[in-house]
């Protein structure tokens, strides 16, 4: 299957290896080192109606360490959410992102906080990368007051307005026309910023996506459509749902780029390229070839429509965290032990956040009525007998 790829050959760094130093100072010295390192992406980009960017990505020790740290946190966060769901502390729906972390972190590395991101329901990690907190994540998942949406949204509705994250959406494909609207606003305000509308391979067959593509192309909007192709729409493999699973080509008159979504540096390069392109030439589609280890949601074991060998194969060959780990080791930016320590530290951070989130109270019952309309609208709500109990919605 095209999903399994061989591990890339890692190039030797162009800068000479650093002098040996004690373990602690080594990590300290290199986690803030911003000397450029050039790394080649695992595979070249494939373009549709556009010139693909170069395979050589400029990064630094600091950036790679950030990638590793953040991805380790996200991985740990999703796995912890899994356990919490099974313990029935999280109810409702929970769609986990582990395996796809490189898309979130790579995108973040290539853009600014003034660029907008809007995505579907697999949004925990995007929220985290946009400056979300672990407490905000777990409290929201458990429906508590300290959650990022005050406990009223749940897993599928995380938001971070200050940092341009326009949220998670439950209805498949509904967020894409919204993303185009965001882009229009940015262009109208003459901002040098772009909007990223993320959707999955299942949503790629929704009519509203093509309506949005047409509008964005017609009006030259700085909208970038990112198809996070994890090859399965719930349980349906892409080749059974789409006549053309080359999602980067489906924009037709909108150029597209196919990117290895498990390589954070490739994602970064693609997003930087896309931003530049969108500000000059209008919309672009980025297809991120990625994979999710979990099933579609917590009610899906993820093993009825794909073999365990396939999942473990991808985990072995293409895992995004492992790729960055190998880079860090090859470039002597950190030792094996240091990386394991970071993972342990992040694990503890996640556990602490969960403990704190558990202490957070449920939202007050009056919150049932708030924010239906803007405050002060004064809609009346009656009790069951329509005589006694009356409340004016805040």
């Amino acid at each position, binding site marked *: 299957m095209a999903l399994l790829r061989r591990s890339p050959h890692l190039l030797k760094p162009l800068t000479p290896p650093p002098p040996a130093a004690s373990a602690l100072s080594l990590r300290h010295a290199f986690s803030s080192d911003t000397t450029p390192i050039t790394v080649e992406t695992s595979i070249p980009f494939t373009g549709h109606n556009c010139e693909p960017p170069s395979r050589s990505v400029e990064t630094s020790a600091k950036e790679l360490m950030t990638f590793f740290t953040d991805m380790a946190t996200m991985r740990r966060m999703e796995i912890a959410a899994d356990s919490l769901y099974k313990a029935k502390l999280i109810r409702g729906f929970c769609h986990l992102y582990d395996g796809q972390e490189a898309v979130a972190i790579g995108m973040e590395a290539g853009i600014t906080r003034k660029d907008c991101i809007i995505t579907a329901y697999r949004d925990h990690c995007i929220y985290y990368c946009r400056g979300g907190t672990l407490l905000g994540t777990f409290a929201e998942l458990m429906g508590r007051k300290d959650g990022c949406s005050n406990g009223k949204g749940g897993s599928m509705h995380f938001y971070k307005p200050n940092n341009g994250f326009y949220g998670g959406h439950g209805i*498949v494909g509904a967020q894409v026309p919204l993303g185009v609207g965001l882009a229009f606003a940015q262009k109208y305000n003459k901002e040098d910023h772009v909007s990223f509308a993320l959707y999955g391979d299942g949503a790629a067959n929704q009519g509203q996506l093509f309506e949005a593509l047409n509008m964005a192309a017609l009006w030259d909007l700085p909208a970038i459509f990112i198809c996070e192709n994890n090859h399965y729409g719930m349980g349906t493999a892409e080749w059974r749902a789409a006549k053309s699973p080359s999602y980067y080509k489906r924009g037709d008159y909108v150029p597209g780029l196919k990117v290895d979504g498990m390589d954070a540096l490739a994602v970064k390069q693609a997003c930087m390229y896309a931003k530049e392109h969108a500000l000059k030439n209008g919309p672009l589609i980025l297809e991120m070839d990625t994979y999710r280890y979990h099933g579609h949601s917590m009610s899906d074991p993820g093993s009825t429509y794909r073999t365990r060998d396939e999942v473990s194969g991808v985990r072995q060959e293409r895992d995004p965290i492992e790729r960055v780990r190998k880079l860090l080791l090859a470039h002597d930016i950190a030792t094996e032990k240091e990386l394991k320590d970071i993972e342990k530290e992040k694990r503890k951070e996640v556990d602490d956040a969960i403990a704190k989130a558990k202490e957070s109270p449920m939202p007050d019952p009056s919150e049932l009525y708030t924010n239906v309309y803007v405050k002060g609208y004064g809609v009346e709500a009656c009790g*069951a007998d329509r005589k006694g109990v009356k409340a004016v919605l805040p």
Partner: protein
Amino acid sequence: MLMRRIGRSSGASRSCFFISRGGFSTTTATSPDGTTLLPTKTSTPSSSTKSINLFTAINQALHIALESDPRSYVFGEDVGFGGVFRCSTGLADRFGKKRVFNTPLCEQGIVGFGIGLAAMGNRAIAEIQFADYIYPAFDQIVNEAAKFRYRSGNQFNCGGLTIRAPYGAVGHGGHYHSQSPEAFFCHVPGIKVVIPRSPREAKGLLLSCIRDPNPVVFFEPKWLYRLAVEEVPEDDYMLPLSQAEVIREGSDITLVGWGAQLAVMEQACADAEKDGISCELIDLRTLIPWDKETVEASVKKTGRLLISHEAPVTGGFAAEISASLVERCFLRLEAPIARVCGLDTPFPLVFEPFYMPTKNKILDAIKATVNY
């Protein structure tokens, strides 16, 4: 073998359609050999029954529908392997992938495609995975399906279309897996909206809907898929559309509901009984065209009416029932008509227990109405 086309003008003139003053019509159905079947209320005592749950009953209905008409098709998201609620298990294996097939993720496409298929004289049974996702298809249902026969002067119709969708709260569904959108569709002349309350009802009603020569939207209460278990006849039987059923006789107050809410209302009736209030409970079954006669007769008997549904109260179908009954029974009413419904908020996440029209809210309203 004479195959009757659905909804052909020749067929329509021979079947027993009549529109009564109240606006409900008896439905008939044609079996593949061309004979007209009259609807039966219950199955014959000699047929065997089996204790099954709601999704199994619906599954049986689909098996029978596909078996009895070779030009019927079941399609939707993930129906091939059995569907997310197991309603279509075994269908693809038995009838083949050309008759039971998955569609891509496109509700508007699914319904539009179904309308076209039905216009060619087939029985198209489309599944929308959750009623919350039906809105992209709303335009197709309202503007195409409902008006096809009307605007073509009966030259064309899509009567063979049946859209099935699980609806209603499930305890942890949140905003997008719990909605009850029946009121939106009740506002559209040209389609029928049917909601069963139990496995036996579901099998009979679904078969009636599939064989009804009008497009039907069939909402299935998802909470009851596994929870409701009942003795269901194993054979092919149909229950009449546009006929409400009095499931509990009483004399003090009439309660009207549909779907999963009836179970809650039943409990409230039992509790009210202990306080000496005799409640009459009616299952509407078909929401449009709805059986005004049965409800009117009941309210003329009791003088009080309470309607309950999960959907938000403002603009919910209870409003239509209330207005119609006031028109018909104004002088007989002893108390204002009570509506115990969902609140006027989006379906909440953690606040679901507060939002839902619970047994106690209904009990409260029963007492307030009786003591008015």
